[in-house]
């Protein structure tokens, strides 16, 4: 039975020596039935603690956790222990049982061991392309195969919720994308509620329908991955979700001035602000381009090729210390000059803090 997971004002305080460390500060969260929620955050912001509280491996200091309408954890008390929560979990280390073959690892979680279970495990193994390694021990499997065995183990018991803790961080970059696609596919196919925790925005963007950015023990922003990328609420969120150039700007009478450019911004209050522009929203050109505004002349410092596009580091002529990253479809000779253009609607303005 797939469930909706709801957290209400969950806090968690750890004692570190004499000091109390507040890891989670009143987290509210709803993961709808069948949805895949991604939790993004730098290390030490309570991602893993949040996940362990949902799994029942950790007790919340206060607040409640519900699976559908059923209270499973409350202040300092676990009401439904982890073994009865029917959770499928993929650990960062995968935590396969080293003394059991892949098949037994998967079957360990399944209550009845009949022919039906065997068929089901083989179906899942087929889907995850591990059918031919079911009789091997974890130490005889590659990293990707171990991860898929861990995923199969989590899925085989028809979990109410699937929890994935940094599931791709131990994989080679080469197979990471196919692993992400596979997780997305099985999550949708099984229709299971899922929670993916990661510090890598690429994991979240490729798997999650909804994503939350966890900063300092609470969600700084929750929304679709695209929303987080395009309309981040703060510079920290913007930085965490993807690469961004940060500049100082001034708003005066509905106009934002940044470098040598001026953009209409009626939604901002007057004063000094932080301006964020992603590298793909910038361009260097000799001439003006329709729909883009000029930020002034720049000089190229570095020009490198990154697979499909060129990556430039440029500095404004009059401000050598400022460096901006630009994604470009052509290279630029070092020390040559050009005009820096930006898409005005993509320029992000944050409060100066």
């Amino acid at each position: 039975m797939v469930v909706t997971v709801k957290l209400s004002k969950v806090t968690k305080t750890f004692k570190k020596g004499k000091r109390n460390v507040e890891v989670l500060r009143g987290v509210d969260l709803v993961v709808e039935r069948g949805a895949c929620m991604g939790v993004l955050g730098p290390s030490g912001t309570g991602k893993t603690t949040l996940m362990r509280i949902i799994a029942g491996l950790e007790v919340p200091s206060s607040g409640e956790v519900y699976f559908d309408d059923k209270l499973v954890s409350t202040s300092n008390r676990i009401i439904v222990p982890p073994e009865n929560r029917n959770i499928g979990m993929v650990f960062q280390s995968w935590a396969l049982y080293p003394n059991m073959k892949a098949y037994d690892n998967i079957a360990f979680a399944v209550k009845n061991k009949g022919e039906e279970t065997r068929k089901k495990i083989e179906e899942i193994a087929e889907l995850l392309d591990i059918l031919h390694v079911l009789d091997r021990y974890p130490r005889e499997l590659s990293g990707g195969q171990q991860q898929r065995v861990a995923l199969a183990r989590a899925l085989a018991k028809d979990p109410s919720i699937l929890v994935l803790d940094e599931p791709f961080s131990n994989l080679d970059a080469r197979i990471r994308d196919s692993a992400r696609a596979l997780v997305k596919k099985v999550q949708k196919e099984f229709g299971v509620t899922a929670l993916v925790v990661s510090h890598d925005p690429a994991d979240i963007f490729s798997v999650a329908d909804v994503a939350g950015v966890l900063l300092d023990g609470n969600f700084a922003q929750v929304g679709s991955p695209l929303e987080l990328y395009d309309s981040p609420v703060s510079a920290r969120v913007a930085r965490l979700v993807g690469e961004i150039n940060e500049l100082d700007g001034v708003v005066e009478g509905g106009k934002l001035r940044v470098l040598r450019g001026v953009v209409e911004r009626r939604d901002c209050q007057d004063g000094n602000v932080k301006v964020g522009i992603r590298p793909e929203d910038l361009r260097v050109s000799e001439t003006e381009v329709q729909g883009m505004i000029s930020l002034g002349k720049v000089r190229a410092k570095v020009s490198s090729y990154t697979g499909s596009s060129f990556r430039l580091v440029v500095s404004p002529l009059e401000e050598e210390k400022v460096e901006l990253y630009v994604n470009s479809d052509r290279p630029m000779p070092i020390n040559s000059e050009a005009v820096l253009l930006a898409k005005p609607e993509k320029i992000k303005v944050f409060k100066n803090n």
Partner: protein
Amino acid sequence: MSEFGPTVKAFLHQLILAIFVVIWLIPIYAMVINGLKSEFDVTSTPVFIPPLHPSLTAFAAVWSQLDVPLLNSVIVVIPVSLVATFIGAMAAYYFYLLSVSKRRSLNFMSNTIFSLIALATFMPYQAVIIPLTRIEANWGLLNTYGGAIFAFILFYIPTAALLMSMFMAVLPRDIIDAARIDGSGDLRTFFRIVVPLTIPGIISTLIFNVIEMWNNFFIPLVLFNVAKQTLIPVAVESFTGGYGTLYNESFAAAFLASIIPLLIFIFLGRYFIRGLVTLGTGGKGAV
């Protein structure tokens, strides 16, 4: 060492190993050859020279004295070490669970009981032998298997728990968490995951317990007062008399008494080594 070639290096390694093997084998060699000597030869020939006319007379003579104590020792030591190791392993797993628990009360409990166990392990059993003997006398357990079993269980379960705790400490926490999430209760997790992963530790603990109990002289000395019904270390000691010692029979008796621990070590020794390695390398030996 760099001026030596790899062959010379390997030869030196082997040579050093061989020297150590010889040193370790000397007592066993002496026990065997002197046991095969006659009463006259054993006092008139050097201890490391084999007899000219080996005979089994001494072995035959002591066997009639040692057969019952040897059987007694097997009956008491083997089951007790199995039970003590098993209960010790369970206790150690319980401590492991308490120690990873975030509840402060459980943590406190774990530390307290663990300290008590350490105390029980390191307390000299001689210090409590008198109250123990009184208790056993009251219960009519003197000169019985039950009495020896009770005493050994009492003294060696804490030792086993302490030893096993060291092996448990290297269990990866994620694996235990994974088992919980997979709906496995503590008992199932213990038998299906903890035991297989700590086999080298369990066998090391078992060997340690067997050898410690087998060689324990003081407890059977106090708890048994009929020479023929005691355990093997006391029986062996009885060949050293107050007025003279039959050296050939003493050697033969000592050899017979050490056969069982020797066999256990020969067959299970590699697990013992692996167990020690596990402790040293953070759990790699367990897989």
